[in-house]
């Protein structure tokens, strides 16, 4: 933890506020910041819709602030780096996105997020009479055994969850229905990450863990939380084999399943590495008789400058496929 991080920043205490200012400016007026909170809201929200509020700690750019847009999040409540947003920020963001049909909270399953979003939900229901439902993303198979999925962390699966739930919240008429789709998606979603090098929090300037020059950690969490095991640096094919074995066995994914596949950069990994891993994953899918409906390879859920990647598989049915394939556009994620 001695090696200092090297970043081009202004005052490290202001990173989140300045980042959000930069994001709003990059967004051509399609999102606005709430005056007193690190929260973003779409400027083109229809008058009546089920609202989708996403959020969590910052430092995972472009998640979450970059996922506010059409068929994605209606708003985002952003905390400081790696720290859940506070209840007041969540409450104000929820009030700003609410369009009369209730608000779905969608976020990663972490103690801090759970408590802060729960407090906000209680305040909204009690003080504002706004109905809130909550779906927590729990895609990280490395975080807990299958019988305790409620103890699992949310990692790159957030992207598919926001994509599908955002689509459902655009087209479906009731909070119940949107929640149902989101719950189905999260039940079909599995991810796992591998870390090659650590990231750092701007305010401390310290790397969040240590890893020897020839070591990697399989199952690393999105804030540098411990994974399943450390091992020597290995070939792309063998790393993909190990990760896919655990992911496939977990749901389990079976012959004949159709999936969406995401390979997500944790920050500093080259796209070349991810594409080489994609090659191996497809060999495995072919062998297992699993068909890939679509693939996303890119940088969406990061841990600052951590190096490594995650693999996400989402088992599809026609409904999930429909919402996943709707066009979407935001600073962080666009697809026609």
């Amino acid at each position: 933890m001695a090696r200092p991080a090297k970043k081009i920043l202004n005052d490290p205490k202001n990173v989140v506020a300045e980042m959000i200012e930069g994001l709003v400016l990059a967004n051509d007026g399609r999102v606005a910041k709430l005056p007193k909170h690190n929260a973003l809201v779409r400027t083109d929200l229809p008058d009546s819709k089920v609202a989708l509020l996403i959020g969590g700690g910052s430092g995972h750019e472009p998640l979450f602030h970059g996922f506010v847009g059409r068929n994605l999040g209606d708003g985002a409540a952003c905390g400081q780096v790696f720290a859940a947003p506070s209840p007041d920020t969540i409450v104000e963001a929820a009030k700003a996105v609410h369009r009369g049909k209730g608000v779905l909270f969608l976020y990663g399953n972490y103690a801090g997020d759970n408590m802060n979003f729960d407090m906000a939900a209680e305040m909204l229901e009690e003080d504002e009479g706004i109905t809130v439902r909550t779906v927590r993303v729990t895609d990280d198979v490395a975080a807990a055994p299958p019988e305790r999925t409620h103890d699992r962390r949310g990692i790159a699966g957030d992207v598919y969850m926001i994509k599908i739930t955002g689509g459902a919240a655009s087209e479906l008429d009731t909070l119940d229905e949107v929640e149902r789709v989101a719950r189905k998606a999260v039940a079909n979603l599995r991810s796992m990450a591998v870390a090659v090098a650590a990231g750092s929090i701007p305010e401390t300037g310290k790397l969040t863990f240590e890893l020897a020059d020839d070591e990697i950690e399989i199952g690393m969490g999105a804030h540098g939380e411990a994974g399943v095991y450390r091992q020597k640096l290995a070939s792309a094919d063998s790393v993909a084999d190990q990760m896919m074995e655990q992911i496939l066995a977990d749901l389990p994914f079976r012959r004949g399943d159709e999936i969406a596949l995401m390979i997500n950069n944790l920050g500093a990994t080259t796209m070349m590495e991810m594409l080489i891993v994609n090659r191996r994953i497809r060999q495995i899918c072919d062998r297992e008789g699993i068909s890939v409906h679509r693939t996303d390879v890119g940088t969406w859920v990061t841990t600052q400058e951590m190096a490594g990647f995650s693999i996400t598989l989402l088992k599809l049915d026609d409904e999930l496929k429909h919402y996943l394939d709707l066009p979407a556009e935001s600073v962080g994620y666009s697809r026609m």
Partner: protein
Amino acid sequence: MSETLDTAGATAMLRAVAQAVIDQTDVLTDADLAIGDGDHGVGMRRGFEATLEALQSPPDTVEAAFKAAGTAIMSQTGGAAGAIFGTFFRSGAKAFAGRDAVDGASFAAFLETGLEAVLKRGGVTEGQKTIIDALAPAARAARAAAGGSLADVTAAAAQGALDGVEATRAMIATTGKARSLGERSIGHPDPGAISVSLILVAARDFVAAA
């Protein structure tokens, strides 16, 4: 050494507590780097800097002073610690409702009330290597000393918290970001528990010096 603290005294104590935590930012950072994500120090600093600012305008009552601290922490710390310490101070404040001073008994009640709220909010029990493992023994020690002076009670609470921090070293985390470390979390004290001890030691020292 005064036996009780009026609103101004309680406010001064909270300011001393805030400064003590802010001064130990790096200690908390390193503790959280070891088993968590490394943001506990800067989170606590944000929350307690906001507390210092909030207490610039003198609160009307002891309860208001503690509630202002909790509100500042809850809105500025973020993360698990923001929710927990925010809830702790805001809910604990109710123990001072209608009272114009902090004495030993009300301080013990403050810890108990805060603890109860925090247990409910966080859904954990003792032994999971969290804030609770410093707060619960502190509250018990304070209750046991509650017949005595405020100095006795704060001293007992601080000692309970310090013992609790030590005990967290041997625990395996089963919640929060340290959970996935499993046995690898053994040997490290819990960062949130350290924060509890910093708060209660600062309170003890303030009362002893007052």
